[in-house]
């Protein structure tokens, strides 16, 4: 693949169809500027500031733009609040739609056939595979991103985090928690 991609890129550059410096800048953006840390900051703010949380749930694009992450021209967004009674999780069965501005590009598992096929027919089994066993009485809501709506899960704030700063709280919010396949406070790897 590497050679074929290089050949295509040099053709496109020679034809003046793309600017290689712009390509470099785009790669840098996706590798270094967007990623789940953006979403984690949104979540931490919502946990810390009830008024912000209310704005976030009512109008996600505007509330997210307040923090400088901007889907302002484009992406439609909706934030789904997890509670002790309701657990939300997100999938795109038809392709791999994902909220890039707040979570970066999706991980391979999110784009994979096993997740895409099973999330809608066996959500609790999928969550179990992620180590999350939900009580029977919790309502599970799976959101299949079939349109240009992008979904971000607002996980429950973990107990015992009352004194924490927003930065500390953001450290508790993993990508998986914002897709809805984990709880906040567990499984937070390097973001």
């Amino acid at each position, binding site marked *: *693949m590497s050679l*074929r*991609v*290089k*050949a*295509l*890129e040099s*053709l*496109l550059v020679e*034809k*003046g*169809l*793309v*600017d290689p410096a*712009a*390509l470099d800048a*785009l*790669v840098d*953006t*996706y*590798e270094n500027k*967007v990623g789940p840390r953006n979403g984690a900051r949104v979540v931490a703010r919502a946990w810390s500031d009830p008024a912000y949380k209310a704005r976030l749930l009512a109008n996600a694009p505007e509330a997210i733009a307040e923090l400088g992450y901007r*889907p302002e*021209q*484009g*992406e*439609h967004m*909706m934030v789904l609040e997890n509670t002790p009674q309701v657990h939300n999780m997100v999938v795109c*069965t*038809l*392709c*791999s739609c994902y909220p*890039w501005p707040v979570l970066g*590009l999706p*991980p*391979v*598992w999110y784009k*994979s056939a*096993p997740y895409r*096929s*099973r999330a*809608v*027919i066996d*959500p*609790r089994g999928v969550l179990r*595979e*992620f180590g999350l066993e939900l009580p*029977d*009485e919790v*309502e*599970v809501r*799976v*959101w*299949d991103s*079939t*349109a*240009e*709506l992008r979904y971000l899960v607002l996980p429950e704030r973990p107990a015992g985090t009352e004194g924490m700063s927003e930065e500390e709280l953001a450290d508790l919010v993993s990508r998986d928690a914002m897709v809805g396949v984990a709880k906040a406070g567990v499984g937070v*790897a*390097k973001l």
Partner: protein
Amino acid sequence: MNGIHDMGGMHGMGPIEVERDEPVFHEEWEGRTFVMTRAIGMWRKWNIDTGRFHIELIPPAEYLRMSYYEKWFVRLADLLVKTGLVTGEELETGRPAPGSVRATPPLTVEQVPAVALNRFLAPSYEPGIPPLFHLGDQVRARNINPIGHTRLPRYARGKSGCVAVDHGVHVFPDTNAHGLGENRQHLYSVRFAARELWGEQASERDFVYIDLWDSYLDRV
């Protein structure tokens, strides 16, 4: 199109494999393929729905075998030729056709920050286009089986649910993908009981929300 891409509800795809500390791109070519696609998108030769449809056209065995960015590469090459940005011969030889005029890239470095997070979606508020359904309406997803692009997954067809969110007016992919117009209409999140979708084996506390357009729905 009832393609392999429409895989909601399938069994047998194996376990979900999660990679710890996964990099954004595993190999350099993945990143280059991704950003070339974004940059070429600025030529506005095709829209997001056409782009998705061209991934769906990858033959099923290949679709399942290929990695995500391999599919992006195949689509990019396919659409470059189809839209005439590149000729088949140029693609094969890797060289611009003799005498071809050098273009000016529409995407410059300065524009990258604005563009990177912008996917050129339609505005969602258009008072001139009233919704056909309202929150709480019981609706049934139509049983359509077009050979073209659609975003109505097979597992929802013929099933009934309840309008849970009105997302305003959106471009209709089934026409937009094929150059047949934006056909703007209301889009809703429709709430389906898992038991309606999958029968009694499903938990009565599971629900699936699917984003569906007016044209996909009938009143129950």
